[in-house]
């Protein structure tokens, strides 16, 4: 989602990341009941402590990233994509 926005729609990196987050909300929200209906289990007891930590992290991360220069953020994203891509090729799944 992020590379398509930046490379194809020419959206600035910061906005591409923030917009991707906004799109993930409804997709994940719809995904939980779909996943559960399809027979997958969801352990809300364990999701709770993860979410408690994560909302603080997400707040601080989204605040901090706003202060990063565009090029720096773009290169961080590029390195993460490269690692994720290589992982897919070397150890699929």
């Amino acid at each position, binding site marked *: *989602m*992020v*590379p398509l926005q*930046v*490379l194809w*729609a020419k959206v600035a*990196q*910061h906005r*591409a*990341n*923030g*917009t*991707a*987050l*906004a*799109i*993930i*909300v409804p*997709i*994940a929200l719809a*995904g*939980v009941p779909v*996943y559960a209906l399809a027979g*997958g*289990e*969801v*352990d809300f007891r*364990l*999701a709770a*402590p*993860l*979410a*408690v*930590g*994560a*909302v*603080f*992290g*997400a*707040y*601080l*991360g*989204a*605040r*901090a*990233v*706003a202060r990063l220069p565009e090029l720096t953020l*773009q*290169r961080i994203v*590029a*390195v993460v*994509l*490269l690692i*994720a*891509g*290589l992982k*897919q*090729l070397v150890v*699929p*799944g």
Partner: protein
Amino acid sequence: MLLTDVLLVLAGFFAGAVSGVLGVGGGLIFVPALTLGAGLGQTTAQGTSLAAIVPTSLVGALTANREGNVLRSGLVLMAIVGAVGAVAGAALALVLPTAVLTRVFGAFLIVSAWGLWRR
């Protein structure tokens, strides 16, 4: 039990920070934290990760929005493209072998990385 919770809160914090910076849901870290840290099976870990992604991405998106980093004009279009892409991806996964899909996706990520780096 309590120790697991503390570790999950810490892993969640780390995942949330990565989520807020990179604009990803956080599943990349949630899933291994649940399988390796809490001993869940892969499928339950994925569903549980999905549940944790909801509040994480919500807080990240609201914060990014306050920083002026959400492109509102593109939201509806992107949501439609995302939904169509999710269905198309699921349909493709039924037709194509997983090994082919992961390699195509991996190649897409590497080409994207190159495109972003040289901009």
